[in-house]
């Protein structure tokens, strides 16, 4: 199918592009940053390490989106970042000597050392995938005094030399444990892990391994801490250079804390609560106490090891910081500082050492910060001893926006000013400073975890005259005549204002000033609480709300025009985030309607239970008292129903929940909603089994409930479903991905395609079309087009050399009568095409983009002779398919949307090179002639076929922005038919607008209104001056 890159093909592509580029131009330089906005993100941090090195203090973070980033401590901006693969989680981060060390990977292990100042890789070591041993172990640590690294990779402990990035020595771990921690103490190192359970009878415990650093010889290995695992609430590993390294734990149902010095098999040492906290506790209170580590890099501790212990006494919760001390030969514990953390508030703490050298020598005291969030504020205190705090602060914060504070760390600026970094459950990161009201800066990282997004149309701005009239007598505005007059009043007013402002010349200079503002700093220095939520749009529909749902529980509304936040709402169940999965705009703002616009959110808690909520789309607050409801079980599918509840004017949502047979629920679950739904329930069908790994797709219809059930419909009511069909995949095939129409992509302006001879090929547009991609056991990918109503197979294809893996995903999209998908194809020696003459050709590996266009018949002017489309009766579609080579690997596909679909639809690619590329519809026409085009084909405007889709930089919508990790591309129409809004998100966010067929309904940006006025004036003056002259000439002629 994919031919060689012959001269003809190149010429064809060039011709194609040139013929299309006459339609559309690239971006103008001054449009960048004015019609689009970009937000660079890193994801919710897993670990934050403030580090002071040769270049001052920076904040380093590894995140749940597998990003390693360095932040500016004064502004929160990303100085540099490295984005790791989706299947390569970062497990460890350690900073020493201006170098950052990471250990990453799930099956494969990578140890990398980065330059902390620039983010460039210094050296790396990798261990290939070990299919026999996947214990998810992995740890790495720098050695003292030199730049070598000790790491657990695969099933080995290795010492890596910075010079060679090769193991100095390697010790096999023999699957003894899942190692997650390395402690370096002088000449020896300890690897600590959760011991592998050889038999069920044996208890969980830790396994410790001692190795000699110089030789790599195994000194000893032993088990400690029965019933415990690393990361448990009752266990810490502490260390310091002077005192050595210890494991402290409390076994379950035991009130005694055990302390074990690493390397000493015996004796073990125990200590009672009273000795640690210096308070007598009741045994039950002791059993509930927990301990946590305090230092981000305990290996740097010069003097004493410390940890924090939290206990409850008489209903009050208190946290004490405890340190080890030595008197003569005896080790003991003492309290350093204690603070209350009661009333159910979350107390977080961090510890840091002031930066300044002078201070360092004078006072080796580490400081501790405690942060409490309560009511609507966050309070923090910094202690250096058990006396009064040295610094305190408080700022107003509503936990309903980003959740309560879950973590805190402390760092010092170069002038030894303390800064507190707090992290919330919803994914907000904020830096606090003494004597400032709000946070110094904040980053909303929840949006890097977005799962769904919906555009919400805003009402156009009403004229102020209209507002004034509405305020005095709302009924007046209902008359069209009054509104017409009011609009004229307003227009006259703005005209006079425009004239008095110097014909808008001053305005335009203002615009350029605002566009030059640094976008990056704007995205960071965002106010936590927006001063004025967005309630009105603009005349062109460019300004809408984009409402995001995230897996951190945050639902956020952002302006599509500049990304400013309108509102945020944090969904939680008992203090833990709810994973938001779907966002639907279920009621739009209607002119002259008092009903608030609604957005319906569907999410899932940690136990898989489903929550549905209606939020006011303009404020983010729950729409009513019963607006948030928990369902009895989890959902398997959620979709919009093609019906509106007339009583509330709200669009209905169908929710399929787990049960013996799938159950169908209606949202809102009211009698009026049920009545509206059952009026159309015959036309609603859905399918299940479309998830990855499935081998059967099943189609269902919904059974009609009785009139009594409908009239008493409530939140517990369910309708039963009936299985209509089942489609079994051929043996040896498993489902990879199911694709269906999204966001009205099936809508079209034209029922057919007019050919060169004026005949028509009718499009086969079936809203119930479903595309399945399957993985074949003998290799290759199968493609099936299924009708969801009847379960009929409409078309199938096999890509023998294609491959779909986690890292080489299948991407598909359905638009009008086209299915477009992209997959990886291994280089092959296969025939070029099915009708080839047997000539075999070797083609390169690469992604291919396949387009299948569905027509009612392959004969022009032939179509189904019936008024209604029936999935049961219609003949099979005629499918025309062509493949192209994709310019690059893509991570997301999308299409542009316009109001009436008269404008052609661009196909949008989120590329691995961090770009958003838009390619014209014409290129994806499977009917592009492969031979010299005939007259009819020329008349139809078909572009000659060429296999490569070329990465034309003029068509890169994201231009110089690095839009990393695009997972979703969404589009919304504007009030201008030519223009559509495009949003891409995943890790970074990028919003822009584009005109696939050119801005045919707008004045060109180069059109000068001033020139027009000046020309008209010149003509008028010319007439006024020329008139008398002509009259005089004519009079003179008459006298002659």
């Amino acid at each position: 199918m994919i031919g060689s890159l012959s001269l003809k093909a190149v010429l064809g592509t060039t011709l194609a592009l040139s013929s299309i580029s006459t339609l559309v131009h690239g971006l103008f330089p001054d449009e960048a940053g004015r019609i689009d906005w970009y937000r660079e993100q890193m994801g919710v941090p897993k670990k934050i390490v403030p580090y002071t090195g040769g270049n001052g203090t920076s904040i380093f973070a590894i995140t749940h989106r597998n990003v390693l980033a360095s932040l500016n401590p004064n502004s929160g901006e990303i100085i540099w970042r490295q984005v790791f693969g989706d299947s390569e989680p970062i497990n460890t981060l350690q900073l020493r000597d201006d170098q950052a060390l990471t250990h990453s990977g799930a099956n494969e292990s990578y140890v990398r050392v980065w330059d902390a100042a620039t983010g460039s890789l210094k050296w790396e070591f990798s261990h290939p995938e070990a299919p026999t041993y996947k214990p998810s172990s992995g740890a790495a640590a720098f050695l003292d005094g030199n730049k070598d690294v000790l790491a657990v990779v695969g099933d080995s402990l290795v010492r890596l030399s910075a010079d060679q990035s090769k193991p100095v020595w390697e010790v096999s771990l023999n699957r003894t444990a899942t190692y997650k921690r390395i402690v370096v103490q002088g000449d020896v190192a300890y690897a600590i892990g959760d011991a592998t359970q050889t038999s069920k009878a044996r208890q969980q415990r830790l396994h410790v391994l001692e190795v000699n650093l110089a030789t790599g010889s195994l000194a000893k290995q032993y088990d400690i801490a029965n019933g415990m695992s690393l990361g448990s609430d009752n266990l810490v590993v502490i260390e310091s250079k002077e005192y050595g390294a210890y494991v402290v734990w409390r076994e379950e149902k035991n009130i005694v804390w055990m302390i074990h010095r690493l390397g000493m098999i015996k004796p073990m040492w125990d200590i009672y609560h009273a000795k640690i906290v210096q308070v007598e506790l009741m045994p039950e209170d002791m059993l509930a106490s927990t301990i946590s580590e305090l230092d981000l890099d305990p290996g740097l501790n010069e003097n004493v090891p410390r940890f924090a212990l939290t206990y409850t006494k008489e209903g009050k919760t208190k946290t004490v910081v405890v340190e080890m001390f030595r008197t003569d030969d005896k080790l003991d514990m003492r309290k350093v500082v204690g603070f209350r953390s009661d009333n159910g508030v979350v107390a977080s703490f961090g510890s840091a050492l002031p930066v300044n050298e002078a201070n360092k020598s004078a006072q080796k005291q580490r400081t501790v910060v405690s942060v409490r969030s309560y009511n609507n504020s966050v309070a923090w205190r910094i202690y250096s001893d058990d006396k009064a705090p040295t610094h305190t602060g408080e700022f107003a914060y509503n936990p309903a926006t980003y959740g309560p504070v879950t973590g805190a760390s402390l760092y010092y600026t170069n002038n030894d000013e303390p800064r507190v970094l707090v992290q919330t459950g919803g994914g907000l990161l904020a830096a606090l400073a003494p004597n400032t009201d709000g946070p110094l800066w904040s980053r909303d990282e929840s949006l890097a975890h977005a799962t769904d997004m919906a555009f919400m149309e805003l009402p156009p701005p009403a004229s102020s005259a209209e507002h004034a009239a509405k305020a005095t007598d709302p009924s007046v505005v209902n008359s069209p005549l009054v509104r017409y007059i009011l609009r004229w009043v307003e227009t006259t007013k703005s005209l006079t204002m425009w004239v008095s402002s110097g014909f808008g010349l001053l305005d335009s200079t203002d615009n350029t000033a605002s566009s030059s503002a640094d976008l990056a700093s704007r995205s960071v220095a965002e106010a936590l609480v927006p001063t004025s939520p967005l309630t009105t749009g603009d005349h062109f529909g460019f300004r809408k709300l984009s409402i995001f749902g995230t897996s951190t529980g945050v639902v956020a509304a952002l302006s599509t025009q500049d990304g400013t936040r309108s509102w945020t709402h944090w969904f939680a169940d008992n203090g833990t985030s709810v994973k938001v999965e779907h966002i639907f705009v279920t009621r739009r703002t209607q002119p002259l309607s008092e009903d608030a616009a609604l957005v319906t959110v569907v999410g899932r808690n940690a136990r898989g239970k489903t929550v549905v909520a209606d939020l006011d789309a303009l404020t983010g607050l729950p729409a009513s008292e019963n607006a948030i409801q928990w369902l009895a079980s989890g959902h398997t599918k959620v979709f919009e129903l093609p019906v509106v509840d007339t009583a509330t004017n709200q669009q209905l949502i169908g929710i399929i929940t787990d049960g013996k047979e799938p159950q169908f629920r209606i949202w809102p679950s009211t009698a009026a909603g049920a009545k509206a739904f059952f009026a159309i329930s015959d036309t609603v069908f859905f399918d299940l089994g479309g998830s990855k790994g499935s081998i059967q797709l099943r189609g269902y219809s919904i059974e009609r409930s009785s009139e009594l059930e409908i009239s008493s419909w409530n939140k517990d009511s369910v309708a039963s479903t009936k299985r209509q069909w089942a489609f079994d995949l051929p043996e040896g095939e498993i489902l990879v991905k199911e694709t269906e129409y999204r966001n009205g992509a099936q809508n079209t302006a034209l029922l057919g395609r007019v050919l060169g001879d004026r005949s028509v090929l009718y499009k086969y547009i079936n809203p119930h079309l479903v595309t399945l991609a399957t993985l074949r056991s003998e290799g290759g990918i199968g493609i099936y087009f299924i009708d969801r109503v009847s379960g009929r197979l409409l078309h199938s294809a096999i890509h023998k050399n294609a491959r779909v893996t986690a890292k080489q995903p299948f991407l598909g999209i359905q638009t009008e009568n086209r299915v477009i998908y992209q997959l990886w194809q291994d280089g092959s020696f296969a025939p070029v095409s099915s009708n080839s003459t047997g000539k075999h050709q070797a083609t390169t590996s690469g992604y291919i983009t396949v387009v299948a266009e569905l027509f009612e018949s392959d004969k022009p002017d032939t179509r189904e002779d019936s008024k209604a489309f029936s999935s049961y009766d219609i003949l099979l579609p005629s499918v025309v398919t062509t493949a192209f080579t994709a310019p690059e690997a893509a991570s997301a596909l999308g299409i542009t949307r316009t109001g009436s679909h008269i404008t052609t639809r661009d196909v949008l690619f989120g590329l691995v090179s961090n770009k958003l590329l838009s390619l014209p519809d014409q290129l994806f026409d499977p009917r592009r002639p492969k031979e010299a085009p005939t007259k009819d084909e020329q008349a139809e405007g078909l572009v000659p076929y060429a296999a490569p889709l070329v990465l034309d930089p003029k068509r890169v919508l994201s231009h110089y922005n690095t839009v990393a990790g695009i997972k979703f591309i969404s589009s919304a129409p504007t009030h201008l038919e030519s223009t559509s809004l495009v949003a891409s998100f995943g890790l970074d966010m990028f919003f822009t607008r584009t005109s696939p067929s050119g801005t045919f309904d707008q004045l060109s940006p180069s059109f000068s209104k001033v020139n027009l006025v000046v020309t008209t004036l010149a003509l008028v003056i010319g007439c006024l001056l020329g008139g008398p002259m002509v009259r005089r000439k004519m009079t003179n002629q008459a006298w002659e």
Partner: protein
Amino acid sequence: MLRQLLFIIQSALLLLAAVAVASPAKTYRVRGAIIANDVLGDISELSTRAQVVVNGGEHTGFIQKDGAFAVDNIKLGDSLLEVVSADYAFPKIHLRISLKEDGKASIAARYVQIGSEWPEDAPVLAYPLRISAAGKYDFFTPRQGFNIVAMFSNPYMMMVGASLVAIFILPKLQANMDPDALKGLQNKQK
């Protein structure tokens, strides 16, 4: 004799088994460097803005300050290596890792165009790879300023020009015509 034969067969089988076990697990590291040229003079900025991708994301490599990179865990056979960058275009490279007779792996790298043939006759690149940027993307179309030629090449302006000629110049031409010829023409029009 039989024992000897058995021993040979046994050792051959063992050897085969060892190869069979070892070969699927054996993967290779491909090394290379991005070299500065006129298009991209300063390599250091690339380290946080570009990556090396093999087989469209199957394996990824980060770039060091001096442009050096390594991609690990590449299997025997054909692969496609790309340098992905937001602002620079790089040539794509076809890698063929094969085992030589002595059991050592050899790599043949060639420039390739996506969707085209594996160019068996194309020159093999030096190893470790040395890649330099092919071009810097230019994302923008410059705005066209005021252009007098473009203004007069507009068809409307041409029509205006023609009308002006008809209004002002034709009567002058008429005046210069021979009166007899003019009369003849007028008669013809009648």
